[in-house]
């Protein structure tokens, strides 16, 4: 079930009503949300409910045992190993099966492994990351132990953030499970603004940029030139931002209406004046997860400058590979790591131009991220060297306006959004709900027929 669908709207209104009805009854409230979350996931593929329950059970048992001194090490290493093996199996099995098949074919031992292809369960990375963070945080003493398994099962499966984040920390979410805050006028207004902005970003800006510029460009990169390549690279940078931050906005808004507050996941990332600042503004919940559970355990800021740079490179390369087993993701991660490492040694001191340099670097690195192969990545970069081409894209005024809107969303002062939240919070509740309904209706009307999945669902 995708957020920008009528099916989700119907589902959510029912859950919202049930949640409100049992809001003051803790056990019932948890049961309603847990059932709703499992129904939400079952709408994709009912077979993977057992997997999600298994991951939750692993985290729960790991959390129970990790606080016992005699079991601590075994529980920590054991549960993290199990969780990483599950993640690794689903994410990389197809890659290794295909590689083995190619290797055997090269050696004259042709074998067909395609029948063994494994489906990647939607959102598996996100809920496994949450499970790992729960066990590790229990070990570090950052979270209070939970004896009620429903708390952990709900933490792992809570539907607003289940399939593409934000990755919520147990220390932030578990206390809210016991005492969620009934949404007041401010929270409702904030939720309405977030949901509408998120729907607009996804259904209008991201989806149309994809259809009008990005997809046709990447379907025929060798027919493009400098102008169309520039537009397409910029368009993809905006598409992925609007797609992913739009999903996060909706998730945060939906959770807020249910009485739960998530932390912000994007903070105008293309305004960053350094790569470090970019990663502090882009997919913040994943960046901080990588920092706390990968970068710091690998050594973090300790040791010599060279060692720190190596740790940064390793962390970002692994983050790249998390997106998928392939050269392009490896290159994307490694180059971001290299950029961060170089920046640590030689900080950019170009004043206002810093932002431009970072923006160009980030946008160009989206090319290997989006291109289906390394060969196509090279074709895109070749297009930058041509002024004439045989099949350039037609850039419609609407598409160019969307690029402008997407960029504006990164530069408009956040106080504008806060101001609209303040104004809406003073409006009667009927007007708040009416605006949410009308805005959603308009987004559906402007959007294309059909539903485009969110980019980050594949990770």
């Amino acid at each position, binding site marked *: 079930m995708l957020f920008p669908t*009528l*099916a989700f*709207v*119907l589902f959510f*209104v029912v859950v*919202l*009503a049930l949640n*409100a009805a049992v*809001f003051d009854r803790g056990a019932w409230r948890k049961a309603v949300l847990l059932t709703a979350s499992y129904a939400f996931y*079952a*709408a994709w593929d*009912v077979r993977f409910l057992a997997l999600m329950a298994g991951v939750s059970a692993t985290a729960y048992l790991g959390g129970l045992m990790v606080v016992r001194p005699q079991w601590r090490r075994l529980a920590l290493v054991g549960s993290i190993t199990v969780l990483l093996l599950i993640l690794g199996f689903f994410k990389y099995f197809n890659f290794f099966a295909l590689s083995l098949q190619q290797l055997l074919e090269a050696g004259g031992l042709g074998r067909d492994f395609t029948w063994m292809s494994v489906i990647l369960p939607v959102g598996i990375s996100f809920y496994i990351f949450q499970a790992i963070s729960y066990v590790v945080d229990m070990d570090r003493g950052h979270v209070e132990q939970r004896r009620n398994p429903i708390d952990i099962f709900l933490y792992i499966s809570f539907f607003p953030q289940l399939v593409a984040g934000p990755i919520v920390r147990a220390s932030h979410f578990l206390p809210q499970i016991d005492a969620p805050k*009934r*949404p007041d*006028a401010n929270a*409702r207004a904030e939720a309405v603004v977030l949901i509408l902005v998120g729907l607009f970003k996804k259904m209008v800006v991201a989806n*149309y940029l994809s259809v009008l510029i990005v997809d046709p460009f990447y379907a025929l990169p060798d027919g493009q030139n400098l102008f169309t390549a520039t537009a397409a690279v910029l368009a993809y940078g905006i598409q992925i931002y609007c797609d992913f931050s739009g999903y996060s906005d909706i998730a945060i808004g939906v959770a807020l209406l249910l009485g739960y507050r998530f932390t912000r996941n994007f903070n105008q990332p293309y305004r960053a004046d350094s790569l470090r600042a970019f990663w502090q503004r882009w997919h913040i919940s994943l960046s901080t997860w990588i920092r706390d559970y990968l970068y710091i355990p690998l050594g973090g800021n300790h040791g010599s400058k060279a060692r720190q740079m190596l740790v940064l490179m390793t962390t970002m390369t692994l983050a790249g590979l998390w997106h998928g087993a392939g050269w392009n993701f490896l290159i994307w991660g490694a180059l971001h790591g290299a950029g961060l490492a170089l920046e640590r040694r030689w900080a950019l001191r170009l004043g206002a131009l810093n932002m431009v340099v970072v923006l160009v670097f980030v946008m160009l690195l989206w090319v290997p991220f989006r291109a289906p192969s390394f060969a196509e990545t090279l074709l895109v970069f070749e297009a930058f060297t041509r002024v004439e081409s045989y099949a350039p894209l037609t850039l*419609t*005024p*609407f598409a160019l306006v969307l690029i402008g809107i997407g960029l504006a969303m990164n530069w408009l002062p956040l106080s504008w959004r806060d101001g609209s939240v303040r104004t809406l919070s003073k409006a009667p*509740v*009927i007007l*708040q*709900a*009416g605006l*949410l*309904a*009308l805005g959603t*209706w*308009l987004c*559906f*009307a*402007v959007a*294309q*027929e059909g539903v485009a999945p969110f980019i980050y669902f594949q990770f």
Partner: protein
Amino acid sequence: MRTQFTFILTLCFALVLVWLTSGQRLLDWVFLMPDVGQVDDFVIAWVLAAEDWKQSLELEDNFGQTREWLHGILGINE
């Protein structure tokens, strides 16, 4: 608590209004849901009755018209 229910009721009312004034058929969505046996039959019977009632009202497809108008002024070709 009362304001929360007012909020939810307004959303429900808006949903019904949208369904009434649009060409969207709930029946199409119901058939997309997982088959849950007798519950399915019950839901489908209710939705069929509701769709029949909507048909009898002979309301216009405002959603489709707005969509066409918006796509026209934005120059979007489906």
